């Protein structure tokens, strides 16, 4: 099965609250949404963000708008107003998630 970056399949937006970053991942179709639900697990997202996120990652399904929500704890070095990072607001986490590669079934 070919491996594809999420950027080719989906869009994402991220934001912050304190030391927590949340990412919404949006599928264009129901079929892609099912694929994302299967492939983009909380554990996989946790592994993807190693080195940036110190706490756990939770995932929520939002099928009414074909979205997955990831909540990343201890993700901003303490939070925007005390972080030394350039991406202090976590706005780049959404695009960063789109770097994740997943396996996509071959199209016949």
């Amino acid at each position, binding site marked *: 099965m070919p491996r594809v970056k999420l950027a080719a399949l989906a869009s994402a*937006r991220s934001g912050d609250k304190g030391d927590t970053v949340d990412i919404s991942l949006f599928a264009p179709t129901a079929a892609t949404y099912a694929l994302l639900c299967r492939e983009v697990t909380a554990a996989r997202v946790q592994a993807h963000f190693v*080195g940036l996120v110190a706490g756990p990652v939770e995932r929520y399904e939002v099928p009414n708008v074909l979205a997955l929500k990831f909540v990343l704890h201890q993700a901003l070095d303490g939070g925007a107003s*005390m972080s030394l990072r350039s991406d202090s607001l976590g706005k780049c986490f959404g695009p960063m998630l789109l770097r994740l590669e997943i396996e996509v079934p071959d199209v016949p």
Partner: protein
Amino acid sequence: MTSVRIGAGQGFYGDVITAAVDMARLGGVRYMAFDALAELTLAILQKDRQRDAHLGYARDLPAAMRVLLPLCRQQGIRLITNAGGLNPPGAAAQVVQVARELRLRGLRVATVTGDDLLGRLDALRAGGADLRHAQTGAPFEAIADRLVFANAYLGARPIVDALAQGAHVVVAGRVADSALFLAPAVFELGWAWDDWDRLAGGTVMGHLLECSGQATGGNFGGWQTVPDPWRLGYPLAEVYDDGRCVISKPPGTGGLVTFDTVREQLLYEVHDPARYMAPDVVVDFTTVRLHDLGGDRVLVEGATGRRRPDHLKAVLGYHAGWMGEGRIGYCWPDALAKARRAAQILQHRFEMAGVRCEEVRVEYQGVDSLHGPLSPPPADDLAEVYLRVAVRTRTQEDAARVARELPYLGLNGPPGIGGYGGITPPRELLGLWPVLIPRGMVEPAIQVVVEEVG
């Protein structure tokens, strides 16, 4: 069916005024709400308040009012804002002053207070409030001697009270962003405070409007397709009395309103989508349905709500040291290697100067400053790289000394520099400490005062 049109005028402290003018002129709205307070903003306003007790509000408010008040009086638009920040009475006094200068007699300006808990924390604790960190459970003592602000997130009710008293302008402090927009819907459509599904619908509407351009093509995944982004129209909502709404934007403005722009904002900074805790209702976003009607119109329906929480969220800000930083660019050849060498030089210089750094962060802009360890390996032959060094120190003096070491690189480091940003003044770092306070301990102190311009 009865309805009311509500528009967004601003999404953050420092936002442009041109979009609010477009909203007032072209939006056909009865109400315009301005969100000036991101979570971080009180930290900024606190620094103003430390310097001058008369400050602590969003300082762009008077200039915005000078432009908007005459226009809004002419069009019959009422304004609602949380730009009062840490000092709503001070901000309201500025609005009244501007109205006087513009001879807007009879204009009523309301002030909402009661969100500021800083002077009441001891009493709250004595009354049994739990000030442990709401997420980590860490004890309050860890920050008790470093507090700089403490504000509860109020709901829509005091704003509705102000509107009922005839206020044309409502100036509040920390109010939940969405409540600024929910309030005029409740007031105009006569919703009950236990009509959870309608309150949920109004909160979803407010959530879609509170970040201004983020619902109309700003920060949008499909950014390449956004028309005229230099004149982005901010979102407005036609809110119906059954809790549904249609999101659109002023005609003739740039940007776009589609299923995709609205769903990206719908979930923005929402954690558990089935349990979004707003002060007036717990909202379930998973029942919301979006229908793209075409022509920059999206119907939003199906929001459901449950009984409001018994606690209000409050955020305490505490002093967390100082940051010193500096930036300098290196050109080809070996741009990255030169920037790395410069970082080494600086760290030696910090040690030689005896600067006590609790953390030193080195970033290479163009390589890894935004994606950190997730960045792919850099190309071999980069045209340029900017070095950014940031340090965390206990004292302001140490942070300032860091910035003063940067000019050393001007004549004494690797060749090919440019784009030196100058000596950046040290920045105070503030930690945010969320707590949950029983509603009954906060709400009795809420006050609404209306002043009429004579």
